[in-house]
């Protein structure tokens, strides 16, 4: 690097540039949080959805599954599992049956533990997954398989 470009100038670019871009980031964050109510379906968050989210966290579901593409990639994406597994007509019945059938104990197959949730809890979890699937997330995932 040429001698006319001094350490002081480099330092000022570091401090000035970071502060500048961080402020832009904060401004965009502010704008985003103002826009999100249009897309994140928050008007439909019921107490059941809230309990469902706590159950989701308490059992560390993210440790195997992904949700909106984040999490572990060991088990299927669940952000759109509501549509994939029956939707309004059949999802709750599917989830209840599925949770109670675990672990499947098929030799060599990845095993989902049985979390011993009662019917109310499974219903809460279903409500949480249903609510999640109804967010507007710019058309992801590409197809129903997640």
């Amino acid at each position, binding site marked *: 690097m040429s001698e006319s470009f001094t350490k002081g100038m480099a330092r000022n670019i570091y401090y000035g540039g970071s502060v500048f871009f961080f402020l832009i980031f904060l401004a965009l964050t502010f704008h985003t949080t103002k826009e999100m109510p249009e897309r994140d379906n928050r008007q439909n968050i019921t107490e059941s959805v809230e309990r469902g989210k706590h159950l989701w966290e308490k059992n560390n579901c993210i440790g195997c599954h992904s949700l909106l593409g984040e999490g572990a990639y060991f088990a299927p*994406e669940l952000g759109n599992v509501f549509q994939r597994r029956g939707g309004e007509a059949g999802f709750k019945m599917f989830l209840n049956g599925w949770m109670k059938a675990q672990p499947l104990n098929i030799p060599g197959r990845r095993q989902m533990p049985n979390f011993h949730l009662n019917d109310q809890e499974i219903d809460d979890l279903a409500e949480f997954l249903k609510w999640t699937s109804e967010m507007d997330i710019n058309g992801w995932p590409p197809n129903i398989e997640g």
Partner: protein
Amino acid sequence: MNTLKYQSQAVAKPYFVFALILFVGQILFGLIMGLQYVVGDFLGGAIPFNVARMVHTNLLIVWLLFGFMGSAYYLVPEEAETELYSPKLAIILFWVFAAAGVLTILGYLLVPYSTLADITFNELWPTMGREFLEQPTITKLGIVVVCLGFLFNLGMTILKGRKTAINMVLMTGLIGLAVFFLFSFYNPTNLALDKYFWWFVVHLWVEGVWELIMGAILAYVLIKITGVDREVIEKWLYVIIAMALISGILGTGHHFYWLATPEYWQWVGSIFSAIEPLPFFAMVLYAFNMVNRRRREHPNKAATLWALGTAVMAFLGAGVWGFLHTLAPVNYYTHGSQITAAHGHMAFYGAYAMIVMTIISFAMPKLRGIGEANCNRAQVREMWGFWLMTVAMVFITLFLTGAGVLQVWLQRLPESGEALSFMATQDKLAIFYWMREVAGVVFLLGLIAYISSFWVKEKATA
């Protein structure tokens, strides 16, 4: 033979030793998970996959934090040209952090996660159960206390001593680390908001402030092993971290593509993350340039190898593999696939695991009273460890990338109705997972070679 310039630098040693112990644990759990990918019922529920994964990723975070703290305790006194403000505080915090870390990991392993949530009062203030932030709330509070004590100790040291670019950059990085961690306590019911601010910890750590820490440590080691003028190295340091932050802050946008956020993030995220590889590329140029311009032949060849290695691997893992799937139209298909896993593995190893091993390689001989460098035989063993681990990681990344490309091809590209299901796709990827597991075993062998180098002594000349 005591070759420490400041006696209080010695507090770094337990941090480094404990970091490496946790690293071994991380790799063992990685191998368990790798096997569960292909033998799904391996360990038959004794260690379910989610537990193994939590241990694998949490150990990674904690060992790197121990490594960063050890690095700071080692280099700050020397840069500030004064003893550490309180070596005693550093040792107390070491035991607090180590005990909290071990208890948390035991908690993961010994009781069901929901029980752990109950006994740590997660109901009162739910923060658990989110990827990488699985620690019980009380552990998170402990981390904050340790961070505050650590920053206080370093801050007081720098205040009474010389303020070099290296310790200022390191401090801003560490303060940023502590500040952004506070977002781990914010867990709104609204999943979209939860995830949005979750990235304030996860992204702004690894693609933001951690890069400052990495840059500062690399600059410190380069000054020591090359003898190149500090002014030159510090100027580079500022340029590189400026690029890292300028691209990385708005680069957070690449996590907001599919998250109930406005579509402009797809543009912001794509543009700024396209710039993100540049600082890593600059780091490669800089490391090689400085080593070529060296004014002394440092006896610690292994440390030089680690320093060059971390620059190259960080560029490949964080830069190239990050860029591969960071543009929004590509990410639409690759988001949450094995491509992400491939990128994560090489980026963490190259940028952060290797920078910690760089400074351990440089500092350990002095901390152990051996002198400037280990004997030749020990260094050769250490370099075997370097190459085995690094080459194994290249292959892990390539195999996971292969798995990811095939996964996208089978599961994501076809229309609904024609695409294979997730589990059916996973069956087709088994060969890649097997090869990844073999590469993982080679990585473990490299790690064993590396650790064993600490016990290698020069042959007595008869």
